[in-house]
């Protein structure tokens, strides 16, 4: 079988390199991370309450996902995951019964760590690669 494919090396790196870090892109990397879905949203959470967010991806496999959340609304500070409950805002539940991904949905629960209603912004990526 031939040595086929496409590869693009970094500036100053030889195309014949066998070091993966030398490449901007290579089809030899099994697999390159593909963003199938990316989107943003907001979630309204009552004071001291929680709200469940459900994103339907319908990929029929369990995909790798990433979630960013602005824990304190309008703060401009964005956390990957956002599981820590400190701060005057919201946080994402780390309980796997409420925050998980399956073959159809990406779900997460957002808790409000304050007594007043919060509207939190989030951003997520769903990749075309299996998480399990």
């Amino acid at each position: 079988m031939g040595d086929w494919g496409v590869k693009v090396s970094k500036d100053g790196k030889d195309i014949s390199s066998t070091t993966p870090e030398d490449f901007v892109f290579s089809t030899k990397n099994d697999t390159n991370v593909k963003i199938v879905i990316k989107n943003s949203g907001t979630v309204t959470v009552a004071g001291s309450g929680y709200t469940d967010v459900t994103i339907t991806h319908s990929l029929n496999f369990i995909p790798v996902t990433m979630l960013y959340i602005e824990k304190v609304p309008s703060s401009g500070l964005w956390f990957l995951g956002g599981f820590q409950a400190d701060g005057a805002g919201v946080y994402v539940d780390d309980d796997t019964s409420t925050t998980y991904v399956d073959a159809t949905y990406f779900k997460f629960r957002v808790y409000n760590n304050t007594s007043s209603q919060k509207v939190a912004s989030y951003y997520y990526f769903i990749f075309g690669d299996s998480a399990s």
Partner: protein
Amino acid sequence: MAKDWGLKITKSGVATTTTDPRDMLFSTKYQMFKYHGEYTKSLVLNSGSSSVTGSVAHNLGYVPAFITYGVRSDNGANFIVPLCPPHIGMEGINACDFITVDTWADINNIYYEVKTPFGTYHEYVYQDGYTDIDYWSSYGGEGYFRVGRIGSSGKNGAVRFTGVEVSRTESVSACDLSMFVGFMTGTSDVDHIKWRNYGIDEDNTSAFGDPSGRPKTTAMTLQDRTVPHQLGDYVGINMLSQFNEIRTRNGWSSGNAMGFFMQELDADDNASFGDAEPAYSYMTIKKPGSVTVSFRTIVFKDKIHD
């Protein structure tokens, strides 16, 4: 009319007509993260501090997607942020080296934080009884530990830990023995066991034969407790004053062995507890220390917010 255009490269043996993204090595239908740069930051959480923060500039002018990895200096534990649950370290009786880590981003910087939710940071030295321990008892001899009274006869115990990594000059603020209950006599939660706690007043006490004749520390504490509730429980013993008396001996060196006596008092009930080697008992020591957490963040050009 919209055209189905683009470039697609599939895995070996998979038709290019596939619609399953897992089969594709590359497809212009799907974006991929665009690498912006890697950034590193090391934060040192010192004794007496409960948190430390730092940042690096990514200079993108918008909030980018990013992912952060880290490694903890004292035990080499590698992790990815976010941790779930978001902590690393011992979760024991003092929880003093229990730290949380987090990172976040804004339009200018990546931020890092290391903190402890249980007061100021201390190093937590754990002496594993299963590998580092010697037992002795006047009841079973070497290899056994027992303290209390069996019939009319008082039973004394001793325990020795090897490789105690504390220097003469370090300020130890807690030393707790957790003695595993492998056997017991008397009525649980009712009968009393009373004893005196001593240290073995030697620089590097040797392996047990019969250590009962070895010198005792001036430091002594009285203990009075009921028979443990059940087998498998642990009996806690505060040995701080005894530990510090041995640690400050002129001949003490880090890594030496340290021993303790538990001498039964005549006034207790007909009750005892004990264990046999190999032991599940352990010793924990709380002392000043620091931890360095080294972060590495990969920042992508992909925007998640303005």
